[in-house]
């Protein structure tokens, strides 16, 4: 009967008075007794993994021996004080650092089992798989339509019908379709900044990446637009693996499943977001999340 009603187990156990053992549910099923998914890294499918990752700008070490596992179809947040290396780490995941002069990367990064720093790795292909969204919305000074279709046009796709479908699907995916469906030909710079940021996300997902990297995606937005982006992130994780950098700890707590706290180029603590924000294991994490850093 429960299957027929398709109730989450949390409700079923409440209604029937049967208490399913918590650990039987955590990680394997999408619901547990606390009413929202709570995962354990041991049970996850790891999609992105670094091993002994180091990064230097010239002689300056910026990342020191980063080992991190990023689970598939989850939101992983990186938090930490300014300058600790969050953006640098994020840029490693799609080799954007290659474009920075004097930047050197050591160690390995596996994307779905493939080392992306191998010589044979096709960087253009990698960047299609790993999309990136930045702090400031950066639409091109072109129409809304062209912005979203951009990645596909670059790939040489020309069939109008295919492009139309992809644009609509991506704008819907980014929660923007209803707001712009009648102004697809308008210049994207005429959108509000919250809309622009969702447009950039639509552009990123139009090429159907596997991973979406978001570097402070909402820090330039008003609270309502911020909440829309957060809700979008929550929906996107059904199809994508998301990695978000944010200075807003409440935001990290709201949107992420896992949180990594970085300090001076190292990962001090990595764990389920619930634990990191209620019972961090390391002093420095606690100082940071409680506002004692300084």
């Amino acid at each position, binding site marked *: 009967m429960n299957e027929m009603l398709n109730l989450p187990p949390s409700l079923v156990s409440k209604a029937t008075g049967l208490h399913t053992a918590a650990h039987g549910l955590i990680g394997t099923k999408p619901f547990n007794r606390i009413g929202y998914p709570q995962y354990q890294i041991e049970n996850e499918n790891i999609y992105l993994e670094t091993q002994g990752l180091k990064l230097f700008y010239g002689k300056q*070490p910026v990342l*020191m021996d980063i080992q991190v596992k990023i689970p598939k179809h989850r939101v992983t947040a990186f938090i930490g004080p300014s300058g600790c290396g969050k953006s640098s780490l994020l840029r490693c995941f799609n080799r954007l650092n290659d474009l920075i002069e004097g930047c050197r990367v050591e160690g390995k990064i596996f994307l779905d089992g493939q080392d992306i720093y191998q010589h044979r790795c096709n960087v253009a292909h990698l960047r299609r798989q790993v999309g990136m969204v930045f702090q400031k919305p950066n639409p091109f000074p072109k129409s809304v339509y062209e912005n979203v279709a951009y990645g596909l046009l670059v790939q040489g796709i020309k069939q109008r019908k295919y492009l139309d479908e992809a644009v609509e699907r991506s704008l819907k995916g980014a929660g923007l379709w209803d707001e712009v469906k009648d102004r697809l030909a308008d210049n994207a710079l005429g959108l509000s900044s919250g809309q622009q940021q969702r447009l950039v996300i639509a552009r990123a997902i139009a090429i159907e990446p596997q991973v979406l990297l978001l570097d402070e995606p909402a820090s330039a937005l008003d609270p309502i637009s911020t909440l829309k982006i957060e809700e979008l992130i929550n929906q996107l994780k059904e199809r994508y693996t998301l990695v978000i950098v944010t200075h807003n*700890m*409440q935001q990290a*707590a709201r949107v992420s499943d896992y949180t990594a706290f970085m*300090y*001076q*180029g*190292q990962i*001090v603590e990595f764990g389920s977001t619930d634990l990191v*924000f*209620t*019972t*961090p*294991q*390391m*002093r*420095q*994490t*606690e*100082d940071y*999340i*409680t*506002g*004692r*850093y*300084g």
Partner: protein
Amino acid sequence: MPTLHEKAEKYFSSPLPSPTPQLTGHISQQFDQQLQHLHQRTLEMGGLVEEQTTLALMALLHQDTQLAEQVISRNRRVNAYEISLDEICVNLLVRQRPAGLDLRFVKATIKTVTDLERIGDEAKSMAYQAIALEQQENYLRYLPQLETLGWQTRHNLHETLNAFARLDLNAAEAVYAKAHVLKEDTFLRLSGQVLQYMFDDAQAIPHVLEMLWAGRALERISERSCNICNYVSYCVSGKIRHTH
């Protein structure tokens, strides 16, 4: 100048829980002050409740109805503390969005306040028992144990509040152990004696029963002290002890 690596090393080698957690040290001094204010006011409430317990016990042991009346009327102040502290906690949650130690402290305080209020109620019911026993001639001879149990219970409550005041994990665990044993013992010790008195003298049954209710109140106070010790442990260590 320590190198970058040395600096980082320092932090990696300091796992939690800290044996001496501090509610202060925030960048926001306002937050420091709000947490300290909450701590202070909760301790005030604790002091009041401890005093109520002491006075109720004295009223009972010395057959002092006036004192008992005083305890009963002062219970309103305990309730007022509960309401105002709840409000402080809610405001603090919404304004500061505490995390980590701060969050655990606020949660522990919310729960502590509830238990303190209940201890206040137990003191009040002991005061009522004191009044009910007023007419009995020298009833204490029936239950010499009540006096010892009473002071032990109050002493544990005092130490519980000390553990809360210092957020002292070790103290909280030590007091928990003592209060727990006392709680388990209280009723047992009293009821064994009570039965004996009832067999010896049927006339004594009504007020011996009344004394037994006082014993029940003490037992509950021990239980509440145990709870508060658990909240302190949780606040400091983040671990929840499951009691039964």
